[in-house]
């Protein structure tokens, strides 16, 4: 199968090169058969990469340990679902995963894009094929997933225990889907620049792709936080690690784009800015991959260091220089249709919202790269950790949260003073009320107080929008409240879906504020012994060590420590935390320990606070256990916020839901131009 996989990779390179060369050459202008061949090359590229992926999966499933990748990331006793996820657990497999998914998206873009944009499609095919070719080249020349070993070992190395978690089955592909799908909007942007079709057409063509990409990134980042929380055992979910930062960067620029693109759609403004953002988002997705794979910055998440970093750096620089040069040549054609009419307008609010998104992205990038810069300037190695990022980003994040509430309250074009007063009264009152209540309750952490107060303000804004919309519908169509509410959202999916996304963000911020009140302690307990910890809400939790048991489960020996928990004297349950010693079985009856014992955290989730219990180990091989007990307020709201955000995103991108019965304007320009160019079948 490796031979077939290898052959498929070489075929993919040739097919991809054909699509890229013919697509970029523009020779297909006036030659429909060439345009068709470029499109078909994209489908073929997906086909051959599917063969390559199937070959690797076959190797993984059949335990072909002669393949170096299969040996490195699996073992005979690895549970089936982790064998499937081992495909993207290592660098080589993840490169193939990237290539196959990109080729799938490229094929879907060719297939699903309405015919009126057909004039752009050969250029789109050229861009997607170039990026796919880059990944295939890296695999063929630097990191080949089909590399064979000199001898065939009886068993594999196994999968890192921390990757043996359901979060790691879903989180990396989601993040990859986010990174990868940015290529499609980028390809359309480049196609629009190359073809000089710079009206709103390309923006409409990529609308669903951009939301999808942003949604996948959001899901991937949230699942990554969840995995870190339940698996890594340090009691938090975000550590400002370079690889985490790398995933946040394109999310921030895509978030900025999703806001600024509305200004282009409604008012014909910010055309240059939107192009810049899309190109920047694509480059940041490649930058994230470069950070993860180059080893240039220390990170706990990095893949094994290898020379693929040079490939990515070269590609990143080339793509950046070429894209922005192209944008520069079309600069004059991207002038705004109308000027900004007032500083008190939604357009202006979106501009400042974009400034903050990009400001945060810059500060994250700056902090991530500052150790390299400092070493270059001063010759001294430094570390830039959470205290730095929190100091720089928290104020900007709070300003952004404030704008989340301000933006929807300001009208397009120009807002009057009377309108502002009417719009802001209730939301501001809600924010002040929440702040006053919390301050009266004794909350003295300034940032937490501000975050929760602003969360109250934004909630007030969102509630007001929903209430006014529902009431207006009810009056206009004589509908019941639930029906009016349902139809309001269904008929204005983009607007109200967006508000639900904002609600998700508010929940996130409130949950982040809760992190300021994290409480923890360590204790050594013999069976029957107890320790108490008071939570920020004033509850007293008592943890009684019940004992330690050992048993075998799947591919590991489990050492489980059990704790009985009471709250204010009332028993609320038993929480177990584990040490897992994984082993491989090179021959029947033969066992080899693989990796160091890993820790499984015991968590009791409640809406108020999580009890987070870590069994650190035993004293002198006895049942006397060392624990870390942590009380984490509001953490569950991070995951709830993620779910709300995804629901909002799905509503936004759900097909249909046109505001009124007015017919949509046809993209007549594209069809006319196409007919003229002869690129239509």
């Amino acid at each position, binding site marked *: 199968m490796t031979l077939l996989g290898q052959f498929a990779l070489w075929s993919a390179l040739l097919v991809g090169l054909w699509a890229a060369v013919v697509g970029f050459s523009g020779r297909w202008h006036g030659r429909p058969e060439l345009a068709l061949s470029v499109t078909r090359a994209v489908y073929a590229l997906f086909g051959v990469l599917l063969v390559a992926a199937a070959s690797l999966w076959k190797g993984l499933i059949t335990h072909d340990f002669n393949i170096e990748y299969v040996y490195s990331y699996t073992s005979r006793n690895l549970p089936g679902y982790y064998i499937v996820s081992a495909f993207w657990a290592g660098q080589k497999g993840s490169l193939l995963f990237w290539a196959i998914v990109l080729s799938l998206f490229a094929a879907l873009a060719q297939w699903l894009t309405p015919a009126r944009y057909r004039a752009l499609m050969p250029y789109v095919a050229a861009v997607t094929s170039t990026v796919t070719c880059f990944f295939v080249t890296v695999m063929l020349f630097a990191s080949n997933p089909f590399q064979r070993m000199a001898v065939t070992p009886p068993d594999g190395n196994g999968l890192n225990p921390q990757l043996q978690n359901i979060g790691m089955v879903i989180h990396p592909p989601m993040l990859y889907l986010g990174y990868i799908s940015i290529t499609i909007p980028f390809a359309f942007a480049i196609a629009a620049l190359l073809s000089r079709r710079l009206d709103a057409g390309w923006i409409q063509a990529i609308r669903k792709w951009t939301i999808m990409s942003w949604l996948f990134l959001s899901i991937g980042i949230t699942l990554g936080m969840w995995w870190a929380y339940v698996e890594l055992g340090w009691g938090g979910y975000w550590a400002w690690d370079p690889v985490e930062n790398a995933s946040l960067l394109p999310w921030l620029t895509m978030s900025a784009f999703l806001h600024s693109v509305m200004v282009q759609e409604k008012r014909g403004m910010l055309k240059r800015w939107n192009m810049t953002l899309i190109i920047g988002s694509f480059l940041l997705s490649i930058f994230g991959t470069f950070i993860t794979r180059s080893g240039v910055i220390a990170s706990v998440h990095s893949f094994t260091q290898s020379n693929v970093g040079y490939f990515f750096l070269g590609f990143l620089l080339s793509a950046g220089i070429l894209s922005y040069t192209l944008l520069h040549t079309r600069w004059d054609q991207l002038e705004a249709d109308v000027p900004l009419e007032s500083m008190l307008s939604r357009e202006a609010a979106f501009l400042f919202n974009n400034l903050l998104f990009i400001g945060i992205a810059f500060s994250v990038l700056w902090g991530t790269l500052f150790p390299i810069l*400092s070493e270059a300037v001063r010759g001294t190695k430094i570390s830039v*950790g959470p205290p730095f990022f929190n100091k720089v980003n928290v104020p900007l994040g709070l300003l952004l949260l404030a704008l989340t509430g301000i933006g929807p309250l300001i009208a397009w*074009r120009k807002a009057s003073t009377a309108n502002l007063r009417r719009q802001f009264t209730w939301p501001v009152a809600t924010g002040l009320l929440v702040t006053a209540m919390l301050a009266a309750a004794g909350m003295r952490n300034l940032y937490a107080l501000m975050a929760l107060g602003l969360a109250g303000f934004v909630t007030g804004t969102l509630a007001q929008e929903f209430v006014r919309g529902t009431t207006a519908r009810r009056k206009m169509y004589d509908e019941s409240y639930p029906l009016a509410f349902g139809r309001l959202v269904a008929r204005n999916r983009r607007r109200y879906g967006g508000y639900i996304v904002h609600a998700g963000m508010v929940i996130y911020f409130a949950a982040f504020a809760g992190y300021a009140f994290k409480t923890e*302690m360590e204790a050594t307990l013999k*069976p029957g*012994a107890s320790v108490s910890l008071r939570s920020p809400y*004033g509850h007293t939790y008592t943890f009684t060590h019940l004992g330690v048991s050992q048993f075998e489960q799947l591919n590991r020996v489990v*050492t489980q420590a059990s704790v009985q928990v009471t709250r204010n004297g009332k028993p609320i349950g038993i929480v177990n935390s584990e040490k897992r010693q994984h082993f491989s079985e090179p021959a029947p009856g033969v066992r080899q320990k693989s990796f160091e014992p890993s820790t499984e955290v015991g968590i009791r989730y409640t809406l108020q606070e999580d009890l987070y219990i870590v069994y650190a180990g035993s004293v002198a091989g006895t049942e006397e256990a060392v624990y870390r007990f942590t009380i984490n307020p509001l953490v569950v709201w991070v995951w709830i916020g993620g779910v709300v955000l995804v629901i909002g995103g799905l509503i936004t991108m759900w097909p249909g839901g046109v505001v009124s019965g007015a017919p949509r304007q046809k993209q007549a320009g594209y069809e006319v131009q196409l007919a003229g160019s002869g690129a239509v079948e």
Partner: protein
Amino acid sequence: MNLTRRALVGGIGVWLFGAATRGRLAAQQETQRPEEEEAGALRDPASAGRSREPVSHGDNDPFVTGVEKRLQCTCGCTLDIYTCRTTDFTCTYSPALHKEVLALQDEGKTADEIVAAFVAKYGEKVLLAPKPEGFNIVGYVLPSLAVLLVGGVMFAILRRRTRMVEVARAGSEAGPSGLPPGAGQSVTSTPPATAEELARLEYELKELDQ
């Protein structure tokens, strides 16, 4: 976890009510004296990870944990010493660094002196965040400064442009002669809109508000 809407709303309510009525949000710890019981031996101690020493008073001392949260573990994990020693139980560096902190505390050193001693021994890299001095100030200040600067320039440019738009609009409303709107209208001025055009305008404006 299944969460109903009522549970969600209830949870938020309980939380706000709890926060409002309990008075203090500062957390406190209470450690009960553990009952001394015999602890049985584990069947396979090696599978339970490295043997641990019992937790001492210093391990939970806020002074010690506070200092450790300012210092990075030297094992290459990028975590602070406290988090590493209480998370990565395979790390041999963080327990040793923890002992160094305890030893320096016993010598009567202040938090800053302990941090300075670590910097002298391990270099500036041991700090979890660089000291805000010298070139490092650029690191701290530049992002916020850039946002302020760009925001300020953006504000100034947009303000000037919007004023120009207002002036131009006022000029066009006043007409070429500078007379008030409507005065001296000639036959070449814009004709009044038809009902169809007004309906379309209304729709467009409605669209803008979506």
